[in-house]
């Protein structure tokens, strides 16, 4: 019965948000960011490690974007990226940083420029020189 409903909801185009149960404060901000940008999302709890959880959420999202929240740490992932190379990964994030991260997850869907400052982004970016067209 519950599984059936879950299957039904996963048909909707949404950003999937997964959270540790101790991260409800952070979750509120991330969701507020998504809502302000007007992108539909669904939330569910998880116990998996942050990056893997975010990647798995992205893989299940019809919009290909997943967010994982744990305490003051959060991660935005895109289904076609490697697990250890997320789009955004912030630690020690303030409420406004988390709000911005939620907005950026939405902007990833809307194809709009991201707002999270460069210094707070994942550092695992390869030089573009390697993959010139």
């Amino acid at each position, binding site marked *: 019965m519950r599984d059936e409903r879950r299957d039904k909801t996963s048909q909707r185009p949404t950003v999937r948000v997964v959270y540790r149960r101790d991260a409800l404060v952070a979750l509120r901000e991330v969701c507020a960011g998504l809502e302000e940008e007007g992108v539909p999302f669904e939330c569910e709890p998880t116990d998996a490690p942050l990056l893997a959880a975010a990647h798995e959420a992205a893989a299940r999202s019809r919009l290909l974007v997943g967010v994982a929240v744990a305490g003051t740490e959060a991660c935005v992932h895109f289904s076609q990226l490697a697990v250890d190379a997320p789009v955004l990964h912030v630690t020690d994030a303030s409420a406004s940083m988390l709000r911005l991260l939620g907005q950026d997850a939405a902007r990833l869907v809307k194809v709009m420029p*991201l707002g999270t400052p460069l210094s707070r982004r*994942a550092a695992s970016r390869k030089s*573009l020189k390697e993959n010139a067209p």
Partner: protein
Amino acid sequence: MGSLKESEAPAARLVAGVDIGNSTTEACIAEVDGQGVRYLGGGIARTSGIKGTTRNVQGVLEAVTGALARAGRPLSALDTVLLNEATPVISGMAMETLTETVITESTMIGHDPATPGGLGLGVGVTVPFSALGERADPAPVIVVIPGDVDYEDAARGLEAARARGVVVRGAMVQRDDARLIGNRLGQPIPIVDEIALIDRVPLGMQAAVEVAPPGHTIRELSNPYGLATLFGLSAEETRLAAPISRALVGSRSAVVIRTPAGDITDRRIPAGSLELIGERTRQTIDVTEGAEAIMRLLRRVQPLQDAVGAPGTNVGGMLARVRDTMAELTGDPPETVHIRDVLAVDTFVPREVRGGLAGEFALESAVALAAMVRTRHGAMARLAEALTRELGCDVRVGGVEADMALKGALTTPGTERPVAVLDLGGGSTDAALINAQGEVRTTHVSGAGDLVTRLIASELGLEDEETAENVKRYPLAKVESLFQLRLENGQVSFFDSPLPAETFARVVALKEHGVLAPVPCRHPLEKIRQIRRDAKRRVFVVNALRALEQVAPGGNLRRLDFVVLLGGSSLDFEIPELIAEATAEYGIVCGTGNVRGTEGPRNAVATGLVAAHAEQSREG
């Protein structure tokens, strides 16, 4: 070795032709003997210091050693260095805004937040959120919500006030919370957010908030009669309010507050007049008449002896700045510096509106002036001495730059006399014509690549010059996903690994080796492209025609057949085609030069110096 008599066949000597330009120094290495020239290689370096000064030694060394390395020869083998008598002109530029938008008493919030909330139009009296509780007045209100109020508390507060009978018609919010609040209200109201200076919003005043439906822009606040209807304005008041509605055209949301003395003005700054002094006549023109009028007048006054601006006006200050900079560079007293050419270009500058509450921008019109002065001769001799000390070889100064450029250009396959060259540089655009008899006419006009960069930077509101330089030099692309981008010609490129997040959904300049340089501005790609091409057209096309007209027989462009484009800006991916398009109208064959069949539009003067030297040694 030594078995041949020197008078019959002198040994081959290694010579270097060196061309010091405003921005680059180019060298050409060749072996010269009695029979002819063998070109061995070219080199290029950034010009050190102002051209024609002894500080150039560093750049010359760099270019020469680079060229020698390419030729596989040591510095010690160098016999002679040939320097050209550099074009005795230096260019400078200045820009001045002509209009200023000022909002007094915060009458309008015309900014366009990305995500306003709710929908429709609401009119009421501005009331702070904290005062909602005690409000009993039945008059409709617009609630002003500061940043320290959480969105859920704000929504609850608004609902509670409504339940008590307060007529809430709209809200202004400091944080980016408009949708969050709107989603939590039973009945939607228009909400505009991201109002940075919300504490400056006048309270107890009539205000209107409008949010357009998706895909639309606002209708009432951008219509002067809409404003008149909402605020009950008289005809005279409507006339005064018209600039407000005009400023709001195209917005998705807006707020207008009516205050007793509130106003928005589009002030014209008195720019002053420009006096152009020719050989026979002097003419004065008001700068606000625009670039075209100034350039028309300049043609009548030509040849220009000097240009001055009325003291105490913007243009006066502008020309004085150019003169002072030139005086500083050349070491001449400012009163002896004469401006020998000007190029005026109409432009616009996005400026933050004075008195705005949300960092609103307005496009102010401006005029850019490039000015050119002639410098004193003689500095080359000092430079030659310094170079001799440094290199320990013979250094000769000779050859007029334009003659050398023509000689170099004529090594381009498919060219013969008569031919004209256009040297598109950084500071000035130079033209020279050689006719069938070998007579040469030359001219220099001010304005070139540096002015284009300046126009792009100011019109896009870019802060650093490097970004503007990127926009000028490289094609644009829009990053459409983490793995693909669309180039400005519609082509799509795919990448194996993800593009950097900071370029996501942004317009980027596509540099060499696939490096993407983001262009930090809110304009769409098409707009940036248009600004770029317009800037190039307004400088290079205007200057190409102007310069060619000055060297063409009888000033008639139709009497020119072949034009070869030279100089750094000829390497640009679209400037040559823009000029070719404009000159085609006159039946001119115009294309980018290919010096010695290998160097492209570079190295013409350096090559010409060597060629001239070889001719001399053959004759002598």
